[in-house]
């Protein structure tokens, strides 16, 4: 479960990177159980089946992924696997360049 997410969190520990979930499980307890069972360490907004966050973001299918830069701007959508790793790396490098 969630292999891309897991490897990114592990690889980028200590970097200015955050993984935030929006979880669609029915109850908070179901989310909690899932986090414990799969050792999920990152924070998720609990949104329920058709919650307000998914409604606002017009979510039709899962997984749906948004990659935001340090300014909160949407830079990538619908990236998975290798491409997702590259996208995040690219944004981290961009951030470093801007700081120097």
């Amino acid at each position, binding site marked *: 479960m969630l292999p891309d997410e897991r490897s990114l969190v592990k690889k980028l520990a200590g970097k200015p990177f955050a993984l935030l979930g929006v979880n669609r499980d029915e109850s908070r307890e179901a989310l909690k159980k899932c986090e414990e069972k799969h050792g999920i360490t990152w924070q998720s907004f609990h949104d329920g089946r058709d919650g307000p966050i998914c409604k606002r973001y017009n979510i039709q299918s899962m997984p749906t992924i948004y990659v935001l830069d340090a300014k*909160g701007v949407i830079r990538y959508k619908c990236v998975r696997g290798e491409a997702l790793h590259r996208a995040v790396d690219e944004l981290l490098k961009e951030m470093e360049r801007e700081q120097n």
Partner: protein
Amino acid sequence: MKRFLFQPLALLILPSALWAWHMPEEEKSSAAGEYKALVDRYRDAQRESDAVFDKARTEEERREIRSAFARTRSRFVGRFLAFAEAHPRNRETLLALFFILHPDTQSEASHLDAAVRLILKDHITSDRLTDPPILQLVEDAPAAERLLRGVLAQNPHRAVQAQACLSLALMLKGRATPRPPAGRPPERAALFTREAEELFERVVTEYAGVEGAAEKARAELFEIRHLAVGKVAPDIKGTDSGGKEFRLSAYRGKVVLLDFWAGW
């Protein structure tokens, strides 16, 4: 005064009433019987194939059964088409065409073309194009686009127009959506997005009274205008599994991966 008001309505009803009156009862019922027999034979073929599939032992056998059934299904699609062609004005005609256009049927392009031609020829002004939900389910294909554009331009019923407008907009939005895994926008994405936006806007302004349509279109417009690459992500405020409150905007200064997921 009342009598005058009702006259245009009577004119609208008259042609179809005349047609029903002229058509001999036995012809109506024979078409219904023919359709039912066709559906029954198709279901039998499906059941038979499923039973053989369950007994298959190797992946190769299963592949062979699947492709054999695809050939059978294609023959049935031909029969449903012939039925729709022979009985252009029956209750079952649109059901037969709906079956052909349904994504699960996986009809070949030539069959899709023929089904769309029949709808545009015989049913373009029908108020029944929303039930069965033909316009709602069509997948992106040249024939489907012709169908939606034709219906939007020529169907006189507002609920049907609204559905055609919404479906066409969603089809164009789909064409502009980045494809995983690379997440790059497809060619001509901006062009498709622009037309999709105009059509969603049209649903909101012209078809505000059609149930559900404007609400759906508004959500789509929000996505195009506020959730596109290059826009600041709308802030999210919520609580985590422990009930602790947090918000997306608190993560400015970090690269953020926002991930919509579920355990089920």
